[in-house]
């Protein structure tokens, strides 16, 4: 009976000797789970085990408190089907946990009843530890993968989706069970598939082993395309054979949208900049309007089909159509833009080349625009509203978007009928201070939807137009003002010059007037008595000659005094008829002694008839005397052939007087100064002679010029307006004839 057991025990003892200290646990239990034998290694590892020990179950080598119904390890001894691999853990003699894997070999009685079981256990602690680590890592990985916002997916060699995380679910909208096993193509837009993107990625992976941050588009479950960035790695098994690909996919849709927005803004800005550049080159308002209309309609601009501009007309108090651009039908539109787009890629080129053709392509729209006229006081009108409230209105299918009721009538028709369209945008053009006009623009040819971007663009362009027009107006205004200022400045300069001159003269005048008067009185006595002596003494007396010298010199001094006093206090000229020829004769008579003495040949060529001007006889006498004296003195430096010419003539209502000498002349650099007070080149001059001449000539509305050619001729030319005929005739009979000798200065 039990001999089988004993036999088995003998074999086991033998085996145990053979197995020795290998970590193998061998023990026998009977049907009641009583240990009947165990090997040496087991005895070493579990010192508390003894033969005859009753176990709760064949596995329970250690005391076990667990309810056997719940025990995962429990299995009846007679289980023939699954003899192996019952893993248990025990605590060894050294206190460490030991994992054992048991084979259960039941031993049966002849009649089939169970006798017991042979149990052989292998120490698998090392494997178990490794496996645990592995399990922990796995948990960590899956935690990482599942909390990632990126999609992390695994594809097999056929690009079928094998794993799908939470991130993938969020990005693509598919739940795991919907997508596992599906081909990757499900996620790729058709156009990219047809472009061969997947093949490209596959070959890239095959050669590089990985792909980093590849930006592309993928499909959401809804069919919407999303921007993603993909990093992928080829996965290999231990043998180095590829088993698939892991892909990490990042949703960059919002970033991409920003990028596109940025790009669009940059493009818009550059467009705007280009427009701005062109606009500010012109100051012509109509030209500005033309540029804006082209910019609104050009392919490189806002691409509207047609644009109309109305401007405020202050005269009629209306908003009046000015200019328009746009083809009358699709065919014409195609022709124009394809022509332009072929050769010109920039807005500025198109603007330069495209002239609004009122007779041809743009005739129809301009016929329309000239019919648009709305009184400014028609405040409910949509155009006037846009103008006054600086608002953009979008009208769609005859209805303005947004709140408010508006009028659309124009004369006896309305905007829709005129434009032959009921969908358009109205944008205002205004300066800082006043409304300027409105722009209407539409897509009546190609019916393209007017987008928010279009409207924003239109606003920007309109505001560019506004500022350009304002600039142009300001510039015009400024130009006008500059002219005014320049004129004012010129006058100021002139006046200042006069003022400085006057001030200088006034100061000098006060001083010199005092001195002059003090001198004049004694001069009267000296000269007067000299003349008395001259007159009373016998003709052949030397004393008479001496007295003559005194009186001559005194006369000279008196002349100088008169000059000084005249500069200091220029008298208002009398306004009487003055016979110029007569005065000249008197001057020449006075100067005759000097002319004779200096051996000057005097050539007189006076006008045949008497010539009259209106003025002050004494002053004119003084002026002519100064000029003649000047000429005579200039001839002093000439040794022979001294010559003077005196000419008078009437020419075109002007009396002209020329006094010329062939003296050394005046240096060109000094010509501008000779009429300045106190400027003189003569050692003995007062510098008053010519300034007084100038002063007198000016006081008589005359002109004085000087032309000089060294040692040949210096000519002083004076011209005065001739006296009016009737004045000459009226007074010829009385006053003039009655005049006695003129006063001498």
């Amino acid at each position, binding site marked *: 009976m039990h001999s089988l057991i004993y036999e088995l025990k003998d074999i086991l003892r033998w085996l145990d000797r053979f197995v020795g200290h290998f970590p193998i646990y061998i023990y026998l239990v009977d049907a009641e789970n009583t240990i009947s034998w165990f090997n040496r290694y087991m005895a070493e590892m579990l010192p508390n085990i003894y033969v005859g020990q009753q176990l709760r179950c064949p596995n329970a080598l250690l005391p076990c408190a667990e309810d056997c119904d719940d025990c995962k390890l429990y299995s009846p001894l007679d289980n023939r089907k699954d003899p192996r691999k019952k893993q248990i853990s025990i605590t060894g003699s050294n206190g460490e946990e030991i994992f054992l894997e048991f084979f259960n070999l039941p031993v049966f009685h002849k009649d089939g009843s169970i006798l017991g079981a042979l149990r052989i256990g292998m120490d698998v602690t090392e494997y178990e530890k490794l496996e645990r680590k592995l399990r922990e890592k796995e948990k960590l990985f899956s935690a990482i993968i599942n909390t990632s916002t990126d999609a992390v997916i695994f594809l097999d060699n056929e690009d079928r989706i094998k794993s799908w995380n939470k991130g993938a679910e969020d990005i693509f909208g598919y739940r795991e069970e919907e997508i596992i096993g599906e081909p990757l193509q499900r996620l790729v837009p058709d156009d990219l598939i047809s472009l061969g993107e997947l093949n490209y990625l596959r070959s890239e992976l095959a050669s590089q082993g990985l792909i980093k941050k590849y930006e592309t588009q993928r499909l959401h479950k809804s069919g919407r395309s999303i921007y993603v960035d993909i990093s992928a790695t080829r996965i290999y098994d231990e043998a180095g054979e590829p088993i698939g690909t892991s892909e990490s996919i990042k949703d960059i849709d919002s970033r991409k949208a920003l990028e596109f927005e940025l790009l669009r803004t940059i493009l818009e800005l550059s467009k705007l900049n280009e427009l701005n550049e062109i606009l500010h080159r012109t100051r012509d308002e109509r030209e500005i309007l033309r540029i804006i209309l082209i910019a609104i309609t050009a392919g490189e601009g806002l691409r509207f089909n047609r644009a109309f501009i109305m401007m405020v007309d202050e005269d009629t108090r209306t908003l009046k159509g000015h200019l328009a651009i746009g083809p009358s039908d699709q065919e014409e539109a195609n022709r124009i833009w394809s022509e332009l787009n072929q050769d010109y890629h920039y807005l500025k080129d198109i603007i330069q080349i495209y002239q609004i053709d009122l007779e041809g392509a743009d005739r129809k729209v301009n016929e329309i625009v000239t019919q648009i006229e709305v009184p400014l006081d028609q405040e409910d009108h949509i155009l006037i509203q846009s103008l006054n409230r600086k608002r953009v209105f979008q009208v769609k299918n005859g209805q303005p978007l947004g709140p408010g009721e508006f009028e659309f009538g124009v004369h006896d028709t309305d905007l829709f009928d005129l434009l032959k369209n009921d969908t358009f945008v109205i944008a205002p053009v205004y300066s800082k201070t006043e409304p300027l006009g409105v722009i209407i623009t539409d897509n009546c040819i190609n019916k393209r939807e007017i987008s928010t971007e279009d409207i924003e663009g239109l606003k920007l362009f309109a505001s560019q137009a506004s500022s350009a027009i304002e600039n142009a107006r300001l510039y015009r205004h400024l130009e006008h003002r500059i002219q005014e200022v320049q004129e004012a400045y010129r006058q100021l300069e002139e006046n200042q010059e006069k003022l400085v001159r006057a001030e200088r003269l006034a100061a000098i005048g006060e001083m010199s007037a005092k001195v002059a*008067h003090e001198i004049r009185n004694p*001069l009267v006595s000296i*000269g*007067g008595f000299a003349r008395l002596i001259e007159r009373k003494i016998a003709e052949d007396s030397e004393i008479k000659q001496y007295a003559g010298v005194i009186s001559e010199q005194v006369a000279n001094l008196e002349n100088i005094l008169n000059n000084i006093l005249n500069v200091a*206090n220029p*008298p208002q000229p009398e306004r009487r008829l003055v016979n110029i020829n007569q005065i000249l004769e008197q001057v020449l008579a006075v100067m005759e002694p000097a002319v004779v003495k200096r051996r000057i040949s005097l050539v007189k060529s006076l006008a045949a008839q008497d010539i009259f001007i209106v003025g002050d006889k004494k002053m004119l006498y003084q002026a002519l005397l100064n000029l003649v004296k000047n000429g005579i003195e200039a001839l002093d430096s000439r040794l022979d052939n001294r010559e003077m010419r005196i000419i008078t003539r009437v020419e075109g209502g002007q009396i002209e007087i020329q006094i010329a000498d062939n003296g050394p002349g005046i240096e060109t650099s000094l010509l501008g100064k000779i009429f300045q007070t106190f400027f003189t080149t003569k050692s003995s001059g007062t510098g008053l002679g010519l300034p007084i001449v100038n002063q007198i000539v000016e006081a008589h509305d005359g002109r004085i010029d000087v032309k000089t050619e060294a040692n040949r001729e210096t000519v002083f030319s004076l011209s005065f307006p001739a006296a009016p005929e009737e004045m000459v005739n009226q007074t010829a009979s009385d006053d003039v004839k009655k005049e006695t000798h003129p006063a*001498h200065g």
Partner: protein
Amino acid sequence: MSKILIVEDEAAQRLLYETEIVDLGHEVVLASDGVEAIDMVRKEKPDLVILDLMMPNMHGLDSLRKVLSINPNIPVIIHTAYSHYKDNFMSWAAEEYIVKSADLSELKGAIKRVLASRTVSK
């Protein structure tokens, strides 16, 4: 022959004018300032007064006013070194305004003119 009063504060000039005018054949009476002049007009009843302006005691224009208040018909020739009193209204009451010069021909011409016009009007 007319009686001419010369009003002149400077003795040398007084002598000069006296000599010249007497040589023209007129009777000359003299005054050396405005106060004297008024006295002489009253006493001598001259046909013509030659009046200097810048004189001590009384300015010539004041003297002119006084002289004319005594006899509004007496002709006066202002004879002065200054030209700017021409702008003074009072000076317009005089028949002539002569700026002094060593050359007396202008003064002489004025005397002739004034006396001639008086003779005509008389």
